[in-house]
């Protein structure tokens, strides 16, 4: 199973503040982290990979991928139910089970848009992650989640053993264990390779990872436990 990018160009205009991203490469099975600055084109590239946008040039080919899901950065754009219950049902999941898991029991009759931003993100991700997909693309999945929820979602993502999972994020603290690191640098998507080797050339590495590397303590991966483990290593 592969997602193959061949000379893909995604862009936004040609004036000041506009940008263009050139993307080549193959996303194979596993968890891929794509980092990049604000305005570097992460969201647009995510939508191109999901097939929601047509690239300005180049091709995105799916090999063996039968199901695709994109989680938007702003979950309010993906809401279809008038109540929390309807929203769960629209994803084909049991509201009781999902709401209990994310500590929103008793909120069934509320409008999803009246939830706090973090609560809505929790609801959205819980519904979405109740299913399996060959290609799962998550655009800033951790924004607005509290620290406990970030760790819970990361744990859930780390347990995905099949399919291609691509995380687009500028998160700097809480990550799942990932297989590959990519980043957008100077308008180009660059694959840094497999973790942990990829950490050495990762320009958007969080400060904590950079500090650990500078101290000669290369973590095995970037999940909180890996970083604490590396820090405690003598």
């Amino acid at each position, binding site marked *: 199973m592969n997602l193959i990018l061949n000379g893909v160009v995604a862009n936004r205009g040609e004036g000041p503040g506009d940008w263009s991203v050139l993307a080549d490469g193959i996303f194979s099975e596993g968890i891929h982290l794509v980092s990049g600055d604000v305005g570097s084109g992460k969201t647009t590239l995510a939508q191109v990979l999901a097939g929601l946008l047509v690239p300005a040039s180049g091709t995105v080919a799916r090999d063996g991928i039968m199901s695709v899901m994109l989680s938007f950065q702003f979950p309010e754009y993906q809401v279809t139910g008038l109540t929390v219950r309807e929203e769960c049902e629209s994803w084909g999941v049991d509201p009781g089970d999902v709401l209990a898991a994310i500590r929103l029991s008793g909120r069934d009759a509320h409008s999803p848009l009246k939830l706090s931003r973090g609560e809505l993100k929790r609801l959205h991700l819980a519904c979405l992650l109740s299913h399996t997909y060959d290609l799962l693309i998550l655009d800033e999945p951790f924004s607005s989640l509290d620290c406990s929820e970030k760790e819970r979602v990361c744990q859930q993502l780390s347990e995905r053993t099949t399919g291609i999972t691509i995380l687009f994020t500028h998160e700097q603290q809480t990550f799942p264990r990932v297989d590959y690191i990519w980043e957008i640098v100077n308008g180009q998507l660059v694959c840094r390779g497999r973790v942990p080797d990829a950490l050495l050339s990762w320009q958007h590495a969080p400060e904590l990872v950079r500090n650990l590397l500078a101290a000669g303590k290369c973590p095995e991966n970037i999940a909180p436990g890996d970083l604490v483990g590396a*820090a405690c290593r003598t």
Partner: protein
Amino acid sequence: MIALRSLRYRHLAIDALDIPPGLTSVIGPNGSGKTTLLRLCTGIDLPESGSVLIGDRSPRDAEIGWVNEFPDRNILFETVMDEVASPLRFRSVSCTETGDRVERCLELCGIRHLQDRSIRELSGGEKILVAVAAALVHTPSVLILDECDSHLDAARTAALGQLIKRSGTEYVIQCTQQMEVAAQSDQVVYLDEGTVRLSGSPREVFSRLSGTPFYPLSWRCRA
């Protein structure tokens, strides 16, 4: 000092909280009342009972800059220039002074190159920077940021911290889910289930959160 007394609003119940000048970070689980607290401090919402006083004034009588957590809800106008100029135009500031102040503010926020862009076409992070510029352009005494760092990368989060310092705003209250950011504040307030559980210096508050996901990861790594 910003003083909250016997405050009741929806599920928020705060008997007494003092927010000193400087940078205050409000942290806590989703749904704990952080945004509600911030909206009461701006005067957007009024308490059902109790009071919020900024010095001796109510929030609605104070100059306050507010950045919403939903970037699209900050925006009233089409272009970056018009959006940032709007707080001054609403106050009937002269065109010349408005132009000068907007220019300085765009420069301060690092978005001068976007001034003629349609805001709708910007990324989430860029929209936040526009909203911050619009909140700062009328030099408020209180700047309130509702988790806007969740849309910013590390470099821009650091730059935002620097520009807030340079702005000289007397009170800055932000809610954040980035504990590394909160650890750099002058004061931290930890909310849970609508109540202030902890408040004080980062060291005082985080020492009580040791062993929870709210304890900064870098502190875990140096322990």
